[in-house]
């Protein structure tokens, strides 16, 4: 408890919010954190969404996707980062690669299971009406599977935000800096401050996404609570993700 108070005190120390010689402000660190998260998330989306849509729409390749996803989850993140840095050198690239590898499985699973959750009869009827495959995807499958797709996006976002802390091990900044630097200096308040900042950031982002989700999900879910609940049940629970976050943050 005392340590948490000290951590909070560290955060609310005005000088920590100003960049000066030998000190980078907290807001800059948050900016770095967001930057790494944003870039990685973008690449994750560009890779996982098209593949997930293809798997979900055709029903093919699901097995391979599951095997690869599980394999990538088993990779030791820190070790992978070390290998990549040896390979391509220090910089944003190896960090982004690791983050993308972490972000793809939850998003991919969200996208294809979102499409798979759509009633086959509805899709069959849409096809029989004369929709093209693309129209079925855009007008039927994506809107109806959106809840799960967006759930996958939230999970990937949390996973990435939590793991960006690793960048600091290679002096790339981000909020992980306080964890690594604090540890090296035996400065526990600073470490706790870093952990608190990462957690607050992750929860805030997830909260914003939750609000967005409420507003963009198509009318039907607002009309019937039953569908909303079943869709939730299948999503990757955000709680499990925030646990990883705390674990990684230590």
């Amino acid at each position, binding site marked *: 408890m005392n340590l948490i108070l000290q951590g909070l005190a560290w955060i609310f120390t005005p000088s920590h919010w100003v960049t000066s010689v030998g000190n980078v402000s907290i807001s800059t660190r948050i900016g770095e954190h967001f930057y790494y998260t944003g870039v990685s998330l973008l690449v994750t989306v560009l890779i996982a969404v098209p593949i997930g849509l293809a798997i979900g729409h055709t029903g093919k390749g699901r097995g391979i996707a599951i095997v690869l996803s599980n394999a990538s989850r088993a990779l030791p993140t820190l070790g992978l980062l070390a290998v990549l840095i040896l390979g391509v050198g220090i910089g944003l690239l190896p960090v982004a690669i690791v983050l993308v590898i972490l972000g793809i499985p939850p998003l991919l699973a969200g996208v294809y299971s979102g499409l798979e959750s759509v009633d086959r009869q509805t899709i069959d009827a849409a096809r029989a*009406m004369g929709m093209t495959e693309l*129209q079925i995807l855009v007008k039927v499958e994506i809107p109806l599977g959106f809840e799960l797709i967006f759930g996958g996006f939230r999970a990937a976002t949390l996973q990435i935000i939590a793991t960006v802390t690793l960048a600091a091990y290679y002096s790339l900044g981000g909020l992980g800096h306080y964890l690594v630097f604090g540890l090296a200096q035996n400065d526990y308040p600073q470490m706790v401050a870093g952990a608190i900042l990462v957690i607050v950031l992750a929860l805030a982002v997830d909260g914003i996404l939750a609000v967005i989700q409420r507003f963009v999900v198509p009318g039907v879910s607002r009309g019937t609570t039953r569908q909303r609940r079943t869709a939730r049940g299948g999503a990757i629970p955000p709680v499990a993700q925030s646990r990883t976050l705390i674990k990684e943050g230590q």
Partner: protein
Amino acid sequence: MIEFRNVTKQFPDGTVAVDGFSLVIPSRQFTVFVGSSGCGKTTILRMINRMVEPTSGQVLIDDHDVATGDAVRLRRSIGYVMQQSGLLPHRRVIDNVATVPYLTGVSKKKGRQEAFGLLRTVGLDESLAYRYPAQLSGGQQQRVGVARALAVDPNILLMDEPFGAVDPLVRAELQTELLRLQRDLDKTVVFVTHDIDEAFLLGQHVVIFQKGGIIAQQGSPAEILANPASDFVASFIGADRGKRRLRVSDIAADNGELLLVDGNGHPAGVIETDDPRLGAGTGPKSRSVSNKTDQAGDA
């Protein structure tokens, strides 16, 4: 005219649903496919709009092989109603009805305007237009399904057990309205059911199927009833159980009407006595019978 020429369908798992099937479906008539579950009715029906592609053989619409054109365009030109209405749950009723017009580039305003007309055609109140499908009863959803199928004014309307999931009263109502629609709209309707009474009620041309997509008999209801082609047909239409053999009961109803019973002695209805063949003098009760029917006729 829709023609099947020696059509075979083997599904990827090896099931041969239809083997060497040939049939001509007349234009602007109500044709009903009837047969027990799994005999291939749906498979055959869905070959018309290419939702099922035959393994071999041809399906022709007005002498034009459906396989040569674009499947999407073909489907947009044919109305299709299925058992579970298959409406898009995230779109309002009115937009469901306008689904195909929207696909072909009709504006939302115009699409909705025409959809309102169609809702009236199928007997739905305009107040339901802005609901979502889940907020309608099963019978109402089926009506929306019919309205949607009619939205492009198709020449052909395919209906796969459209009234299978609604209660008997609503079904009777929907059947009556469908008959009216068919008379008014003059379309080629192909209707699938496994209810022989529904088949005889609706169909001008009835095709009775046996397992494996084999035609047991086809013809008008009168032809089939008068001359079942085989024991299978006789059994299917209930002739062998005496269901179709009606006679006047020895016991008259309390109010004096002539009661008809089937071969098993179950009451089937009362008799209309306008027909001179049944004329007066059939017994002491004949007067009260004609009185009754006169009243019924006035009502």
